[in-house]
């Protein structure tokens, strides 16, 4: 006991995810499906696919993360949990960080583990797998952290899913560019340490700063 | 009989890895498919028997 409210909330969210596997399986399936749309819509030729594979996988990962973010705070706002966090007087910074962490565990992490399979299906060049995994491992936490800010801002809005995407997509662009370029360069046998380093720097920055923004955004939801 | 020795059978004319990998994966899925309902049945029977005993005790007390 006595985990404090933050610990208890992390535990509660993981319990909820375990009890409702859709929460982490659905983003995974969506990831697979979006990646599968491209060969169907564009061109199924493996040569062609191997050129776009890295980019397509990253776009799919980004969209899957985006969609799973919608639910991050929404239920908590609607059922009054958020009110209780504020009423508890505990640090909203810690709470936001905890929520982002949980979100990564149930979306980013499974995505990263699933990505090699997609690589196979899209004929990703063999040299690019390592870069793909590294970029996802470092990049998806940034997506979760940034996304949590958007989720906090739109938590009180009815059809927030789309609005959230609009707010967050522009912020995701740098991550997308560096990650996709890392995978692409690895595929043509070039060095990609620089890009991963940049993603790492983004991660450090996001981990320190975004919880402030999330905390501020959460307070907004209370003036309902 | 198409194969002369066991080693040849395992090698499958150079395609051994592919053949046995598919058979292996299939075996895993099938085993899970069989084991899952059997285990579920055991758990169910145990839990429900426990519940019945608990309810009986409760009734006896009342």
């Amino acid at each position, binding site marked *: *006991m*006595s985990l404090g409210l933050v610990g208890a909330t992390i535990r509660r969210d993981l319990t909820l995810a375990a*009890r409702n596997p859709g929460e982490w399986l659905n983003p995974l399936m969506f990831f697979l499906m979006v990646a599968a749309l491209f060969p169907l819509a564009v061109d199924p030729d493996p040569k062609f696919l191997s050129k776009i594979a890295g980019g397509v996988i990253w776009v799919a990962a980004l969209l899957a993360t985006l969609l799973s973010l919608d639910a991050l705070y929404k*239920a908590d706002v609607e059922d009054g*949990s958020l009110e209780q966090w504020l009423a508890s*007087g505990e640090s909203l910074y810690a709470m936001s960080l905890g929520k982002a962490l949980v979100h990564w565990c149930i979306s980013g992490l499974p995505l990263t583990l699933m990505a090699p399979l997609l690589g196979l299906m899209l004929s990703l060049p063999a040299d690019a797998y390592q870069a793909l995994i590294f970029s996802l491992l470092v990049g998806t936490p940034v997506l979760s952290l940034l996304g949590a800010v958007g989720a906090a801002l739109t938590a009180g809005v009815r059809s927030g899913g789309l609005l959230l995407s609009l707010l967050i997509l522009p912020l995701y662009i740098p991550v997308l560019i560096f990650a996709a370029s890392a995978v692409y360069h690895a595929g043509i046998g070039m060095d990609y340490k620089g890009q991963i380093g940049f993603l790492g720097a983004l991660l450090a920055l996001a981990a320190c700063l975004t919880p402030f923004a999330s905390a501020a955004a959460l307070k907004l939801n209370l003036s309902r | 009989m198409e194969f002369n020795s066991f080693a040849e059978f395992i090698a499958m004319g150079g395609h051994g890895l592919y053949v046995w990998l598919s058979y292996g994966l299939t075996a895993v899925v099938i085993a899970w498919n069989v084991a899952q309902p059997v285990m579920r049945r055991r758990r169910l029977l145990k839990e429900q028997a426990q519940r019945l005993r608990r309810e009986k005790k409760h009734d006896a007390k009342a």
Partner: protein
Amino acid sequence: MPASSGQTTIDLEARQLFCERDDRVLFDHLDLRVRNGDLLQLAGPNGAGKTTLLRLLSGLNRDFDGELLWHGEALYDDYSGYASLRLYQGHLAAVKKALTPLENLSWLVSQWSVAEDDLWQALDAVELGGYEETPCQQLSAGQQRRVALARLCVAPAPLWILDEPFTALDKYGVTWLEQQLQKKVESGGAVIITSHHALENIASLQQLELGSVRA
């Protein structure tokens, strides 16, 4: 019940509160003080600002003019100290439908440290004995509210702030809750409450009628 409310002194004071919403003044020059043993009911018609005032008093809404003091000092100077001594229950129950009453209650009191046994007893007290491990989505509206109210039995907070706690309760529930309020103020705690329900049975009841906003 581990509520050690007798010892702590409660002294919540509001001076000259003023609050408007959408250019309509809800209250102005409002003074009130709540101390150990007080039970204050906010009354008034729909839209009078009862919920708004409760949220001000519990520190959730800081959008007002005037002073709000806890032990004579501005409430926000030591908000987390204040927060650990006051229990706020709003319109919303903060009960997750996929979790069991026990899990929900344990989360609801995680801010304090409460022994697991006490949680079971509390659920028993609100007549959820036997439902402790049924997912809440299988409970009726009133039963779900009770999960949140079970907190009253175990949280060691001397001051309760409750917004319409009688909602969805049947007559047994109402009687139970009235008894809790009574006990609380008798044991030296304090309660601020809004309710359209009449609370006549309780001796030390004070009422604050908020201005009517009807056209």
